[in-house]
């Protein structure tokens, strides 16, 4: 994995036409993780979607292209009628990798491989969604509240996978409200970047 440093400079991200966060800058070295913190509605999801290339930033610059990132959010794109293995194989062939077995192993899904995903419990489903990350083979993981509905054992499993990814020189960017047990990760508090409405704005800018 060739990524050495992810730099975001002076990003302004928007939602529904209105700026949500302004002037966000951070750096992330290979092998490190960054946790984004902030209250509900501050704009974590918006920032991550912008980094992943799903929406354009209004201003600012990101040093690595969206093609280096693997994005995972609340909706994990699991098809209920396909089995666990078929779901993973599909993404593996989209990303042209061969790491299905590794991913099944990492999240202890081997026993469930032939189970249609629709019959999984919420936690198992979430594990399958995270296993997709392994399969992408991309260096930067962009994760939005990854541990929702996981129990303690699964959270630990997730921590192990993240550490292994970092050890290989990958990076991870996580948004979360709860502790993940990744003490070594850096933290970025988003509160200070909240976009403020300037009172002297021009009328034509008020559209944006």
């Amino acid at each position, binding site marked *: 994995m060739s990524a050495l440093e992810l730099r975001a400079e002076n990003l302004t991200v928007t939602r529904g036409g*209105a700026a949500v966060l302004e002037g966000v800058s951070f750096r992330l070295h290979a092998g490190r993780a960054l946790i984004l913190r902030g209250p509900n509605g501050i704009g974590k999801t918006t920032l991550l979607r912008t980094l992943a290339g799903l929406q354009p930033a209004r201003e600012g610059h990101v040093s690595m292209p969206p093609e280096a990132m693997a994005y995972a959010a609340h909706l994990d794109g699991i098809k209920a009628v396909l089995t666990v293995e078929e779901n993973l194989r599909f993404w593996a062939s989209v990303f042209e990798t061969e790491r299905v077995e590794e991913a099944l192993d990492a999240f202890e899904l081997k026993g469930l491989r032939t189970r249609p995903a629709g019959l999984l419990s919420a936690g198992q489903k979430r594990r399958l969604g995270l296993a997709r990350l392994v399969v992408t083979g991309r260096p930067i993981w962009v994760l939005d509240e990854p541990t929702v509905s996981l129990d303690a054992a699964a959270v630990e499993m997730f921590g192990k996978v993240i550490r292994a990814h970092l050890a290989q020189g990958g990076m991870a960017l996580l948004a979360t409200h709860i502790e993940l047990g990744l003490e070594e990760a850096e933290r970025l508090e988003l509160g200070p970047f909240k976009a403020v409405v300037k009172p002297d704005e021009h009328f034509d800018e008020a559209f944006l």
Partner: protein
Amino acid sequence: MASLWEYANPLKFMRTTERILPAVSALAALCLVGGLVWGFFFTPDDFRQGSTVKIFYIHVPSAMMAVNIWVMMLVTSLVWIIRRHHVSALAARAAAPIGAVMTVIALFTGAVWGQPMWGTWWAWDPRLTSFLILFLFYLGYIALWAAIEDDDTAADLTSVLCLVGSVFALLSRYAVNFWNQGLHQGASLSLDKEENVADVFWYPALVCIAGFILLFVALVIVRTNTEIRARRMRALLARERGADA
């Protein structure tokens, strides 16, 4: 000389247009009333068509407007896609219902005219048929604007629809021509003097055409400015909500 794009600034656009609006509306009213009264009361009947020629003064201008408004929407959509000036997208949105009404008028007056002339209210003549299709395009375009919450998304989607729709509208025009040869009059502005409508009928018609164009301009100004204000208001309300949260 200031660039034309300055008028892409909503505030500047509104100021300028609202300054000229009274004049445009007055002129529109003058031309419309003048042309229609002239046409209705002071022109002779045609020796073949009888009094129905009077429908001409509404039918032709509205038919021309119906097509040209779509062209104008196509241009403003392109401007939005290329330069992303909000006024442009909003002008297209403002124009669409006017275009739809013009299409309805052309269709209705044509149908009413067709009954005495061709002995039928409606025939699947290519020109009439393509007008019907044009009407459907207007409907779809308006419905798409109405269905999408986010303004920029709506502007983008409707612009692409307008582009693709224009291509298909042209294709349909061609297909319809192929499908059925028609009954309808040829274009009267053609250079061939023989086919031209007599001058007595043309002068009032030209006044009416000018009236329809001016009416359209006035309406577009009013409606675009309304859309600008509505857009601004939604933006402000969204901010208030953002500040509350």
